[in-house]
């Protein structure tokens, strides 16, 4: 029986180590992964992670080896519990053990100091001072359950508002000013940096930088109610020129409806409940309760990065968004087939 359990422990621990090893290999991919860094901060943090991971693995393995050795040594004895207990172990052995234990404690303390210093170093390099070098400031407001994104600019005409999809130029730090109007949310794009909470009544600031172009997914990291699970965002990092032209387009008011279907769609939009919550710049629709739709067709996802922005998905979303994100604030819309079609034509034209 005892050998069985011993073998069991051993095989299990080796299984555990295998699992640990698999961890190193398999998590280095993905667009929402903290150890697949695409920016200087995430990079620093992931280095810190690998330092701590390898040291901690070593510590774990050592502790397990000593535990197993202790078990092995103790196994030579009979199982009967009636043997006289040992209240006076040999002094020399106890002193040897004492020295080992004290040594282990000293080593533990030293390791912790190394961690502490490494952690301070990384922390210092992440403070927001750096961000002031760059003019680009983006204000993020968390809502239940989407992200309002406002690009700030000294010139008021260049300020614009979008939602859930944030374009940034590569290679430069971007300041994010974070706030919330309802409950606490947390802004987190793992490939670029750690998270920061959006707290009603407070303003938090972080900066991010993407070193290479790409799409990075972020997700709300503070429980914020029913649809916390579907409150994601995309950061699209692109070269400066591309970013500039995107930005240029976003500052414009909405494209005029051209075709008759689009014009009818605009009428549907303006005469239905849509205008109660959504804004389309350049039309009378100006509510900020829901995402700004001025350039919705230029975004690749809808419903806070939940669904790809296709016509089918838009139809589902407009008619019955509750089936997709139960509890979200968008009401059901009963539109006739023609009206719906026209509305989608119109939305599809809002590049």
């Amino acid at each position, binding site marked *: *029986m*005892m050998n069985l*359990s011993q073998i069991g*422990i051993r095989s*299990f621990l080796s299984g555990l180590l295998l699992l640990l090893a698999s961890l190193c290999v398999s*998590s280095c991919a*993905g667009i929402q*992964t*903290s150890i697949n860094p695409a920016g200087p901060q995430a990079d*620093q*943090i992931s280095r*810190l*992670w690998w330092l*701590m991971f390898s040291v*901690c693995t070593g510590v774990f393995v050592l*502790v*397990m080896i000593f*535990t197993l*050795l202790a*078990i092995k040594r*103790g*196994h030579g*004895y009979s199982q*009967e519990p009636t*043997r006289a*207990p*040992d*209240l006076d*172990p040999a002094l020399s052995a106890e002193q040897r*053990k*004492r020295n080992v*234990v004290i040594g*282990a*404690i000293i080593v*533990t303390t030293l390791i*912790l100091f190394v*961690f502490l210093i*490494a*952690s*301070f170093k990384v*922390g210092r390099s992440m*403070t927001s001072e750096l961000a002031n070098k760059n003019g680009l400031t983006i204000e993020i407001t968390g809502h239940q359950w989407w992200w309002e994104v406002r690009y700030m600019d000294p010139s008021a005409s260049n300020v614009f508002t979008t939602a859930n999809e944030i374009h940034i130029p590569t290679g430069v730090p971007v300041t994010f000013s974070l706030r919330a109007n*309802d409950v*606490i949310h*947390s802004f987190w794009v793992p490939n670029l940096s*750690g*998270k*920061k909470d959006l*707290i009603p*009544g*407070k303003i*938090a600031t972080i900066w991010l930088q993407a070193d290479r172009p790409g799409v990075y997914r972020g997700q709300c990291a503070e*429980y*914020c*109610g*029913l649809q*916390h*699970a579907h409150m994601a965002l995309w950061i699209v990092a692109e070269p400066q020129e591309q970013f500039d032209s995107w930005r240029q387009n976003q500052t414009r008011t909405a494209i005029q409806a051209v075709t008759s279907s689009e014009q009818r769609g605009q009428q549907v939009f303006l005469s239905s409940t849509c205008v109660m919550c959504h804004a389309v710049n350049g039309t009378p629709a100006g509510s900020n309760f829901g995402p700004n739709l001025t350039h919705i067709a230029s975004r690749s996802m809808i419903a806070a990065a939940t669904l790809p922005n296709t016509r089918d998905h838009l139809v589902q979303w407009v008619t019955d968004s509750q089936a997709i994100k*139960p*509890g979200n604030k968008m009401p059901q819309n009963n539109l006739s087939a023609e009206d719906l079609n026209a509305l989608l034509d119109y939305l599809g034209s809002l590049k």
Partner: protein
Amino acid sequence: MKQQSKHIKQATVELSTAQLAREKAELERTWARPRGVIGWLTDTDHKGIALRYVVTAFVFFLFGGLEAALMRIQLARAENHFLSPDLYNQVFTVHGTTMMFLFAVPIMTALGIYLVPLMVGSRDVAFPRLNAYGYFVYLTGGILLYTSFFLNIGPDAGWFAYVPLAGPAYSPGKRVDIWAQMITFTEISALCGAIVVIGTVFKMRAPGMSLHRIPLFVWAQLVTSFMIIFAMPAVMLASSFLASDRLIDTHFFNPAEGGDAILYQHMFWFFGHPEVYIIFIPALGFVSSIVITFSRRKIFGYTAMVLALIATGFLGFGLWVHHMFATPLPQMGQGFFTAASMMIAIPSGVQIFCWIATLWGGKLSFKTPLLFVLGFVAIFVLGGLTGVMLASVPLDLQIHDTFFVVAHLHYVLIGGAVFPLFGAFYFWFPKWTGRMLSERAGRWNFWLMFIGFNLVFFPMHQLGLKGMPRRVYTYLPETGWGSLNLLASIGAFILASGVVVFICNVIWARRVGEVAGDNPWSADTLEWSVASPPPNYNFHDLPTVNSRYPLWSRLENSPIVRGLSTVKRETLVTSVLDAQPELRFEIPGPSIWPVLLSIATAIAFIGGIFTPWAFLVGALAAFGVFAGWFFGDPNHENKTARNTGERSKTPLTNKELQPGEV
């Protein structure tokens, strides 16, 4: 002590069998426990109360486990529709609340309430009625939570109930109010338990059990109780503020009127982090007891262990901000909390090293309790190491509020508390019931739980690194989290099957388990010197101790205590530091007042959800109960003294050797 020592004499006496039998009969009568429903409501015996706590808390553990299973089914694949988001949010809130408040804290206190008086050599706890009250209040809180959950109005703002999400604007209805009042109930209960344990450890120890002879189990309970005293008021205030914001429109957490959402987090975590240690320090006590018994040698580094427990208790209050690193806080403060959070690894390390050193060169007896302790070492060390990672601010910002933290906290709490707890069940079950649990089933139990546990929670580390946030009811297929989640869900059912084996084992053992005898493990502490299960009065004659391991160092040579009444519920009160006899303290018998007081409490706090006037009614009822409590109990002290006189004391017959001071 100096004042009382003149009253104590040492002697050698002959005790005839007939005399002992008569005393025994008298003790049985004096300490008889009332029967029936009324008996259940009035009983104050610490063992009875503790076993109720154990059973109730274990039932809540099963509920919490079922909720966990529901969550694992829901998360087994992407975009699953097994639970609606509303139900999922209720389930994870109730799961967390149950496991923390209705299972972990009460069951740890319960083992203390059962074992501390026996380990220190007392007939009961210091305040048995307060103890009974604590149980009823706890039961009320649990019933309140589950009634609301089964009515589908369970709390859904998380076990932490952050404002403003839990505030009046974003959580209308009664859900969060129920959560807040349930917190109050369980905190009152925990505070009662803490006072009971401290009082017992301070004043009821057997003569000779000076501070350096207190078993490590008892030290752990003592440190925990002190932590409860300083941590729980914070969450009681936080939940009261929350309730009053919701019910009478105060503005503690409303930023529009000068309130502050972060204030809530400070208050909650000032309690919430020590809470982890409140759960896990008692488990360290179980581990020490088991390691000492099954390595059959004295503990290595007793003093270091005690100091480590106390250091953990202090440091535990300096870490709370590491739950809030992602909030906009000043940088400098964070440095302090990082350092403190890392330093707490040192006392934990000291204990792990000392246990290994004890096992090293011990003569191991490889029974199920020891197996659970070894499982604890493996899991807890891993959880502790990820804890060190979370203490680092930059790294925390990446893994905070992700599944990495879910993995970490379960490694610490299941590894650090539940594995030792199951070890403790196997270890003390014979003492509680007189029968042994099956070793064979115990091994199955252990391996299923150990393998299942690691399958559930190890992949979660990786999920966290891959960006999966906590408290999401579903996830998109594109995230690539599906396979690891499926693995975790499969593991959950292996873990659960381990618990099922345990339940079967208990049912089997209650009926046909091997009869245990007084001390089946040849363990060292005083609870093993009495029958299994112990008689109502615990000890026929209270023992005195002359060593840290009384049963291993010839207890029979140590004097016994004579002169306590056999017809009144008396026990010995000793001095705090060196445990010298001071008083013959009278323990109250069965009483209806604790349960009535808990009803008054329930009127105030459950009624308070609906109208503030309920507090007035509850307070008046409570005053009535107190008056009854104060005047209602017979003044048995004088009555019995008149009736029985000197005959009542276990007499000291003939042959006094040398009268004098002990």
